[in-house]
């Protein structure tokens, strides 16, 4: 099992991450990845950018716990998880989750699971910049409900 987790201000390159998931990998038949981007419209308002704050130390620990839980549920071989912090603009990349496994079912499920738990358990907070000023993004109940499907 190879796990890579990074919390960084710098952008990431999806092609590089995909290459890392494939590099010298003879056992896996499936790679699934998700990337999250800064969207222009949120809750009816036009957003020009955002600042992402986190809790250094806890963030890495929380992400590792989520990846470990996924690895306990599905037979995964590699996971790469990158989350950016700091100032981001519209269309910038925020998050990358890439999973490789022998078969696609595990890779699809684990990628989805990691994102759902990241949304609820990893200590990141978004502050949006709109025409009427800055505002903290409020947590959505739909993100909390998304965890229901993973109840064993």
């Amino acid at each position, binding site marked *: 099992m190879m796990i890579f987790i990074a919390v960084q201000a710098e952008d990431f390159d999806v092609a590089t991450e995909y290459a890392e998931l494939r590099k010298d990998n003879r056992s896996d038949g499936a790679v699934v990845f998700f990337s*999250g981007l800064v969207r222009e419209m949120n809750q009816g308002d036009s957003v020009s950018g955002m600042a*992402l*704050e*986190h*809790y250094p*130390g*806890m963030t890495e*620990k*929380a992400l590792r*716990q989520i990846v470990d839980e996924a690895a306990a549920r599905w037979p995964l071989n590699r996971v790469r998880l990158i*989350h950016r912090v700091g100032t981001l603009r519209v269309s910038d990349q*925020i*998050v990358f989750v890439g999973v490789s496994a022998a078969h696609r079912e595990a890779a699809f499920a684990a990628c989805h699971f990691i*994102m759902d738990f*990241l*949304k*609820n*358990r*990893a*200590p*990141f*907070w*978004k*502050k949006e910049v709109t025409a009427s000023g800055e505002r*903290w*993004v*409020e*947590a959505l109940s739909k993100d909390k409900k998304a965890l229901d499907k993973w109840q064993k």
Partner: protein
Amino acid sequence: MKILFFAALRERLGCDSYELETALPTDINTVRSALQQAFPAQAGELTTERALAAVNQTLIHDNASINDGDEVAFFPPVTGG
């Protein structure tokens, strides 16, 4: 004991940490109530709905004991991803 705050909670309380005078060991529910008394105007921001708690960088879902040297933090529901 020192308590850390993050994001909107930090801004609304006007500080990134607070030194709470309390006997140890204690627990999260007791600390939460003490903070609500210390910040009466922002007590509504410190309810279990509005402020999550972490002890030693792990989310606490119910109550949890706090001992000397533990790192305690409160923050709003998370919005990453």
